[in-house]
């Protein structure tokens, strides 16, 4: 039986929610006949995660993340650029902020991680739409357990996000809808050969100049049209 490790620490307001959301993930994994190592509901140390990672095929993290790490408590980095070789040969599913930006890229490009599903920027959620954000956060793993490829999973989750966003928008929950749009926009799954590089400041500058030129063109066209009419 394949083993999955779910790490869902709990040590502040936000992790109360992420821990609760992770319970559904544990249930699904058990239903899919995974042997589940479930560490969470409290502060989690680096050492226990490193040990637990030894024989798993899937690692799930629900909690705070930074560009270069997963947190187990306010002070403990449980996975970072110094021990992400432990993700080699494994699939990773994250519901945390930012970690797909540096850690995920490094794990896949340099450390042999098979797939890294996560967010390249802040994952935000609002209390007026908790069920919808939970649905979004957990959907990727559900689709993966149903047998879809990771790239299909990302595409399906973004489609699901579109449906949820429309529902929120129609209900007048504009803040939740906008936050979810951002979450969906920064969702990625890196796999070997499919890791895009972050934009450099030069790329950003070129993009801004192009937008500016386009804006000027549009204004000129509008002026011409108004003169002609």
């Amino acid at each position: 039986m394949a083993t999955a490790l779910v790490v869902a620490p709990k040590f502040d307001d936000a992790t109360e929610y992420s821990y609760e959301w992770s319970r559904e993930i544990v249930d699904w994994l058990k239903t899919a006949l995974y042997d589940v190592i479930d560490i969470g509901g409290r502060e989690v140390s680096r050492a226990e995660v490193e040990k637990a990672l030894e024989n798993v095929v899937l690692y799930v993290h629900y909690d705070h993340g930074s560009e270069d790490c997963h947190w187990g408590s306010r002070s403990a980095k449980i996975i970072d650029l110094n021990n992400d070789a432990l993700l080699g040969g494994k699939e990773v599913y994250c519901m945390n902020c930012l970690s797909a930006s540096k850690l995920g890229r490094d794990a896949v490009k340099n450390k042999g991680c098979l797939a890294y599903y996560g967010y390249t920027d802040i994952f935000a959620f609002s209390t007026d739409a908790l069920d919808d954000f939970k649905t979004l956060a957990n959907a990727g793993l559900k689709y993966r357990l149903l047998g879809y490829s990771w790239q299909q999973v990302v595409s399906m989750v973004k489609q699901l996000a579109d449906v949820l966003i429309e529902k929120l928008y129609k209900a007048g929950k504009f803040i939740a809808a906008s936050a979810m749009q951002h979450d969906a926009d920064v969702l990625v799954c890196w796999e070997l050969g499919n890791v895009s590089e972050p934009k450099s400041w030069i790329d950003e500058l070129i993009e801004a100049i192009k937008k500016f030129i386009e804006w000027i063109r549009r204004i000129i066209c509008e002026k011409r049209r108004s003169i002609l009419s």
Partner: protein
Amino acid sequence: MNDKKVKQLLLAEAKSKPNEKIYLGGVSFTYEELALILEGKVDSFSDEQRLRFLNDYVKKLIKSFKKVARR
């Protein structure tokens, strides 16, 4: 839809339910705080770091709202 219109819509919602919260990772803000930012009342924030963090996110929120509204 321009930024002013988007801000008006988000502000009206934020003011209508001031006790709801938005979590930006581990940092939470009430909608009341969000409303203050949208109104430009930045002096109400004593914590400079929180202010900058929320201010940066509000820019992303406005951009995302435009995308949602364009559909």
